[in-house]
């Protein structure tokens, strides 16, 4: 047999074997192919191998080399096919399974929208360097009024406008340092903080405050305030406006116009009301001002040395606008369907 004929037979054997092993889909088909090509007795490789004897001596080395190459290619093809078929796992078909059915009910609870608003406010103010402080909710009239420069006969002290305790030392006028009332503003915490710490100060206090409005759509006798205070040497109204502008931008977004207009609070001078433009009108955002010198004197700070600003805002209104809540009472009825929305 001539060398080219032998080579041609080898090549065709190699191609056939490669295809047969690649095509085998089951172990049985693969075994049949193995017997056909690699069978020890009558395999096609064996048959071709026998033809080697009829090749001339001069061509034998070349023929032998090629034979070995084809042989190892066939064997590796078989090996690959074996491994492939070993990894085949038969999938179980279960027609009773319906992947469109719901799973077991699994719900997370929600954080109250007021708390979410408070956390956001703390977050924004935290980035501006303000640290939260806490204080008592049951206050003496000195911290709630006197220290904040509210005169003894001021209408803000009226017993009808405050939750005085039945056991209070004073109701409506005068000053006491005993448990008098549920605080009507978070500014009391400013005073307590200034009594305990020296400037510089950058604090916020958030919490419940109380005023005896009958609950209706827009009023609730308990609500939340955020109060902020910054005191240092050289703090000016430019600092106040800048901090509140940054705060408003962070809370409301860049495009919302904000304005500052004069107002009146006993504990600040000058006083500012901050408005933002929303749905075609100016809405009150909060009150602020430079800390009144009398407030500094009441806590033992020297108003000739330090200046500062304070601001306060109602959390409920911010929360309600943010979440589209129309009735403030919904916040405190705690209907689980209401709470699940946030």
């Amino acid at each position, binding site marked *: 047999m001539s060398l080219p004929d032998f080579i041609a037979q080898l090549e065709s054997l190699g191609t056939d074997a490669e295809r047969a092993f690649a095509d085998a889909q089951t172990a049985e088909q693969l075994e049949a192919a193995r017997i056909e090509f690699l069978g020890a007795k009558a395999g096609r490789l064996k048959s071709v191998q026998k033809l080697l004897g009829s090749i001339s001596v001069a061509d034998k080395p070349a023929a032998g080399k090629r034979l070995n190459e084809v042989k190892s290619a066939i064997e590796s093809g078989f090996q690959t096919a074996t491994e492939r078929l070993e990894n085949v796992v038969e999938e179980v078909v279960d027609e009773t399974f319906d992947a469109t059915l719901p799973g077991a009910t699994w719900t997370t*609870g*929600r*954080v109250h929208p*007021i*708390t979410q608003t408070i956390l956001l406010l703390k977050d924004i103010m*935290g*980035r*501006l*360097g303000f*640290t*939260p402080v*806490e204080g*008592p*909710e*049951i206050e003496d009239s000195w911290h709630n009024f006197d220290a904040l420069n509210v005169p003894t006969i001021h*209408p803000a002290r*009226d017993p009808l406008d*405050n*939750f005085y*305790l*039945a*056991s209070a030392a004073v109701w409506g006028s005068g000053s006491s340092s*005993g*448990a008098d*009332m*549920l605080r009507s503003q978070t500014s009391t915490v400013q005073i307590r903080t200034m009594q305990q710490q020296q400037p510089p100060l950058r604090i916020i206090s958030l919490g*419940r405050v*109380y005023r*005896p409005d*009958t*609950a209706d759509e827009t009023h609730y*006798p*308990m609500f939340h305030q955020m109060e902020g205070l910054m005191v240092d040497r*050289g703090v*000016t*109204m*430019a600092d106040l*406006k*800048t901090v*509140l502008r940054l705060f408003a931008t962070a809370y409301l977004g860049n495009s919302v116009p904000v*304005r*500052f*207009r*004069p*107002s009146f609070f006993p504990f600040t*001078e*000058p006083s*500012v*009301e901050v408005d933002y433009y929303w749905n075609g009108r100016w809405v009150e955002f909060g009150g602020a001002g*430079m800390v009144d*010198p009398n407030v500094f004197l009441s806590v033992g700070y020297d108003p000739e040395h330090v*200046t500062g600003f304070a601001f306060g805002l109602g959390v409920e209104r911010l929360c309600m606008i943010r979440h589209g809540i129309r009735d403030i009472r919904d*916040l*405190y009825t*705690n*209907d*689980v*369907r209401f*709470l*699940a929305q946030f």
Partner: protein
Amino acid sequence: MIVSWKWLQRYINLDQLTDAQVAERLSLSGLNHESTQVLAGDWAIDLEVTSNRPDCLAHIGVAREVGVLFDRPLQVPNPQPQATGPAIESLTSVTVECPELCPRYTARLIRGVKIGPSPAWLQELLANATGDPTQFKSINNVADITNFVMLECGQPLHAFDFDRLHGQRIVVRPARDAEVLEAIDHKSYTLQAGMCVIADADRPVALAGIMGGAATEITEQTVNVLIESAEFAPGSVRNTSRRLKLASDSSYRFERTIDPIGTDWASLRCCQLIIEHCGGQLCAGVIDHGGAKAERTPIRFRLDQIARILGIEIAPAKVRRILEALGVKIDEGNGTVVGIWSATPPSWRRDLTREADLVEEVARIHGYDKIPEDHAVPMAVSRTTPVDISSQRVRSVLTAAGLSEALSPSLVPSVLSELYSPWSDRPTMATLQPMLGVLDTKFWNNAGPVDCVRRSLIPSLLELRRINEFRHHLPIELFEIAKVYLPGDSFPVEPTMIGVCSGRSLLDMKSVMAEVFGTIRRGLEVQVDVVSDSFFAPGRGLRYRIGDQLLGLMGEISRSTQKKMKLRQTCVVGEFFQEALVRNLQVIPQAQRQSLYPAIERDLNFILETKVRWADLESTVRATGGVLLEQVAYRETYIDAKRDGEGKKRVLLTITLRSLDETLTGKQADEICQRVVSACEEKCGAKLVTG
């Protein structure tokens, strides 16, 4: 305060200005613009006047502001009515028995007036200044003139029918208890001792500063008129007005204080207009008790304070112009001290007493918009407090477990306050005023007022559960983080509590709370004891401790609690001290080395007395397991009286053993198990089931 554009023009030239321009500038200088009504030939501009600016409760005051803002001169009338009658002292007298309630009282007398309708211009201005002319009712010329002068200068006035004053005299005195006055609103008011009244020889004829009496009001028959222009103490007017639930334009102004110098001006102005429009003869002189107040004290005004407070410089000339236009008299001194002025505020600005007040005046007229809002504020670090960190961890676990956060009022009715108070035996504190509109009164018809400052969150949470049950909203899984108020000797203690209320089982809630505590500090050892407390179902109330520290309570409510709260289903409630968690908070969790060697698990099946508690069995296993004991897991309890006898149970548990340093051998595990089994037998009477 509703201002008529037309009226303003009596004192200031408004040419070339629009109502919108003026309203905008007023808003940005302290008189916030509420709304503008367009009227026939006029605008009614509604301005919000803060309580420190009673001078702007009048057209002249607002005109002065506009004049300062637009740099236009103010023209104030100079009333000089001719007195052609006899001396007033010969006809009447005024006695002020209580100068502390009435610092100044002036009276003038006009005889022979002709009562009739007011002139058209007066009716129009008064009508427009109500904002809604269709609702305006003119009274008569004299009464309308007193109202006009009040709205012109802010001084409330009253006109008495002189002939109906018994004894033809005025006595300003404290009311006697239970005196009755019929006011011009034709309602009778029962007075209390101490209220200030204007009386004649026999009876009260007006409530000082609030309202006149019907008996002496001006009628068509009135001929002689006594004009009162006075100053009443703000606190007294407010208290009387509040107590009688009777407020008026007059009381509103007296409560905010009036211009003490303006009192006589108003009286003269009123007399001038009456003579002009109603005829009559003004008696000579005035009865003036108290007289005009002493001059205002000058304020030392350091100009450098403007930059110190506002952060901007304002030229001294501008500062001076602003202050002078507002009526402040400036004395720059003899020039030896530069930059320090002596500034004397006008009588109508009682709110200006200090340097800071003047700085504010300059700032608001100069314009807050001139102060930059992009200033370089120094940076500062802030920190999240341990309280906030622990609250956040508590919230994240509880919400992950399906509980939603509730917020409920701090005041509760006594029925809820008395339902349960685990932290204080002292009586609850009560407020004078109750909270109104916060209680489901359809359900709680006899609960009493909401005036108890709550001592526990648990009753509130049960109430929230009841409301949700009633509305058929299930499941009801709630928590609240809030203060409770435990009465103390002077101030109450106000611990912040974490309250939970759940429809799941007590054991499931225990697991939830264990996860909460685990996020506070991994491996935090919390002890739980069963307590006897009739609020909870027998054997189902737990007290939590961290060592000696009380942590809280949790349990399944008893049937009687359930019945009292009209709950359809039982539930689990718990309340924990936040401070106990904060004290044990690990702010930054620290990594522990994890073993890379395999664990050995052994199941132990014990027979023991039914009454033996798992907690005792578990702590015995833990105490004897040693360092290689990684976990003790409860599997199940099995009761079979036939096989094991009465009062016995089988408890299956799995212990996990693992070493950090080596693979444990079966022999090591056997030894540990042996120790554990012996200890359980000795301490708990537990017998190991074998085979």
